[in-house]
């Protein structure tokens, strides 16, 4: 496996010398996400061959795997020991890799209750834009030696380095899950989700769509039943398939070909008056918006900003707007300087996140 790392490092060094942009790719499942890489003669750097679990000790709650490891393989291995990636990452395709999952930094339905992908990242091994082999963090839960580069890498869209290995905290599968459905209007649902999140209830996922609030309870059997008694609602059959459809965006709400906006905001924000259809997750903190091409990006971004958040053009459909919410000048300065330090020649996924990076 070291020869693969040497190969990657060699590619990076040559690219840096010749200023050739590299497009880092794993399974290609999230190619739609983010902006197009800028530059000419873009060279693909395929990481999928660097795969496999390096270390997994269920009783330590830690797994270390190579970036090219398929998410399905990793999750299957964890399930054998009744454990899971608690942030429930979306795959968006069978070929999805761990490296892509960390680089994209996307989390699924369980995010509001257990945390995001970055919350579970304990350490990384990576190559920077000079091809230097670096290790940050580690395989332990608590570690404050040095700046938290592992979490900085999470969600950086491959613009700061090539991920080689990632150590993650894992959690046990809940002993029991039950999904309930309750009919209500959007404003009421937002109110209820926030109210219930403030109570010691084992709610592990929420989804509001078409005047129905679907929520999942996870925990000890007695606790799940007690919560069902308190909350009421109809038990949903085929619940696992439902949550998978929300996570993978195969749910009927997500119509292929249309522009899909992802608005992340304060969970208590009342219903947004934006044209199009909405689906709400994460107890109100995540709002998906399907709109037509005429939808003005500025309007969506202003609505998100007013609610203390930001808007991402998640799938661009017919829209040509930039994927990510613009940063303030001061924040962009810091971002640019970080990029210059990690990738001095600007060859790693240039422009994938912002044109300046």
């Amino acid at each position: 496996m070291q020869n693969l790392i040497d190969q990657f490092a060699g590619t990076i060094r040559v690219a840096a010398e010749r200023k050739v942009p590299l497009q880092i790719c794993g399974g290609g499942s999230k190619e739609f996400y983010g902006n197009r890489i800028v530059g000419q003669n873009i060279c693909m750097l395929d990481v999928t061959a660097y795969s496999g679990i390096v270390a997994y000790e269920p009783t330590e709650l830690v797994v270390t795997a190579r970036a090219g490891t398929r998410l399905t393989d990793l999750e299957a291995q964890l399930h054998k020991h009744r454990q899971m990636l608690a942030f429930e990452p979306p795959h968006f395709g069978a070929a999805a890799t761990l490296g892509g999952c960390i680089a994209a930094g996307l989390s699924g339905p369980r995010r509001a209750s257990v945390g995001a992908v970055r919350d579970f990242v304990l350490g990384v091994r990576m190559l920077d834009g000079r091809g230097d082999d670096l290790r940050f963090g580690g395989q332990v839960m608590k570690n404050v030696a040095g700046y938290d580069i592992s979490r900085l890498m999470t969600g950086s869209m491959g613009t700061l380095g090539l991920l080689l290995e990632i150590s993650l905290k894992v959690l046990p599968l809940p002993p029991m899950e039950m999904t309930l459905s309750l009919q209500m209007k959007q404003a009421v649902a937002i109110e209820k989700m926030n109210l219930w999140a403030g109570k010691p209830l084992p709610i592990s996922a929420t989804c509001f769509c078409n005047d129905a609030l679907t929520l999942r309870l996870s925990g000890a059997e007695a606790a799940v039943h007690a919560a069902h008694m308190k909350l009421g609602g109809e038990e949903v059959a085929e619940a696992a398939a439902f949550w998978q459809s929300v996570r993978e965006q195969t749910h009927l709400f997500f119509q292929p070909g249309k522009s899909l906006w992802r608005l992340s905001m304060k969970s208590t924000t009342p219903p947004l008056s934006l044209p199009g259809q909405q689906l709400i997750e994460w107890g109100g903190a995540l709002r998906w918006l399907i709109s037509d091409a005429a939808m003005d990006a500025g309007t969506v971004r202003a609505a998100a900003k007013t609610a203390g958040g930001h808007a991402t053009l998640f799938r661009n459909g017919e829209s040509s707007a930039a994927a990510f919410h613009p940063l303030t000048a001061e924040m962009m300065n810091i971002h640019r300087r970080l990029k210059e330090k990690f990738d001095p020649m600007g060859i790693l996924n240039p422009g994938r996140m912002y044109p300046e990076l």
Partner: protein
Amino acid sequence: MRPLELVNNLRTFLPPEAVLYESEDLKPYECDGLSVYRQTPMIVALPQSEDEVIRILRICHMSKTPVVARGAGTGLSGGALPHAAGVLLSLVKLKRILEVDPIARTARVQPGVRNLAISEAAAPYGLYYAPDPSSQIACSIGGNVAENSGGVHCLKYGLTVHNILQLRVVTMAGERLEIGGAGLDAPGYDLLALMTGSEGMLGIVTEITVKLTPSAEKAQVVMAAFDDIRKAGDAVANVIGAGIIPAGMEMMDRVATHAVEEYVHAGYNLEAAAILLCEADGTAEEVADEIRHIDGIMRQSGAIEIRTSRDEAERLKFWAGRKAAFPAAGRVSPDYYCMDGTIPRKSLAHVLDGIEKLSAEYGLRCMNVFHAGDGNLHPLILYDASRPGELEKTEEFGAKILEMCIATGGTITGEHGVGIEKLNQMCSQFGSAELEIFHAVKAAFDPEGLLNPGKAVPTLRRCAEHGAMHVHRGEERFPELPRF
């Protein structure tokens, strides 16, 4: 800029009592919770608002004056040790809780607010701020962000980094940054994570939005005693292996239980080689279920005694012993030195054996308390600073423990930070390429290197010297710090 000129500049907008420069006024600021390191600052500034922070930083930036931020001064790694030619920026007067939003479950607070004060303000709504470092009655939330503080409940509820949503930060150049957001994520790089645990090296935090957690309906603790530390370690692995994430899981060795029992009478088994405290919290149903499980696992793991708290008073009594471990060390020994390594749990017995050997080798007693759930080990080395050479021996003992933590795949600091204390061990944990990245990150925020200079990340030169430290030991302790 000369000291008096700087004082006069600061006094154009700060009241006289907020700019200290007389040596008797500076004295209280000469150290933080790690009092073996002392240094009087040139000036202490006590701003009351973010605007004042900005103006102080701009003046210092212009005059190239180093700035060291300080919260409550409870830090255990010398991170707030002043700079002899610098301004110590005390943030204690920024102590307002600006907003508690019970519906969104957040609190917006200034950095000088005490950790526990946030939970007290949230309590009427059935909410609390989860990270609970042992110093929570005194330590400030700004300091918690700087150190990424944990606590006894962090295996289940996370560290500071998992419990904050947004920061307002002022850079050394006096620019305002808004990092994070009111939602669960933010655009761009995860600067919220980068700032957390950055030990005052990147910016000054002026406002923090924290996440509040619903208070559990009930909590109950199992106390299990073991005649062999290995069995206690296995019991921890067995609990986790059974799919249980306890709210807290703490271990104490025999030296520790004897020291605290005399002091707080927690009812610990004094025959035991180690005791485990394992807490379950949640709804009444969940707790009953989990306690039954834990009890069974402790039995199977060979516990010689198991007791479950019958009521809240007894639960607090069981915990009182663990919480009194540090003061108890202070009672049985004139001085103690607290280490903060983290190790993979499976290496516990190996590391404790090693500590015992070192203890014999150095002729110094050591008591061990262990955040067993997350592998964070606090060996407390007992020594007497009035005996010549004993502090140096203690530091060497401590350094060897940390090297052992690195060797098992762990880290030199789980929650106390590097500060001034563990710079040499950073050279062991990281290579020069990683250290260069750390310096580059610092430079991205603070190109002139004026914020908390000489802390957290050693210079490459220092590491080169550290390689020969055993030869040149004692010649020059902090080559980065100018001496006057």
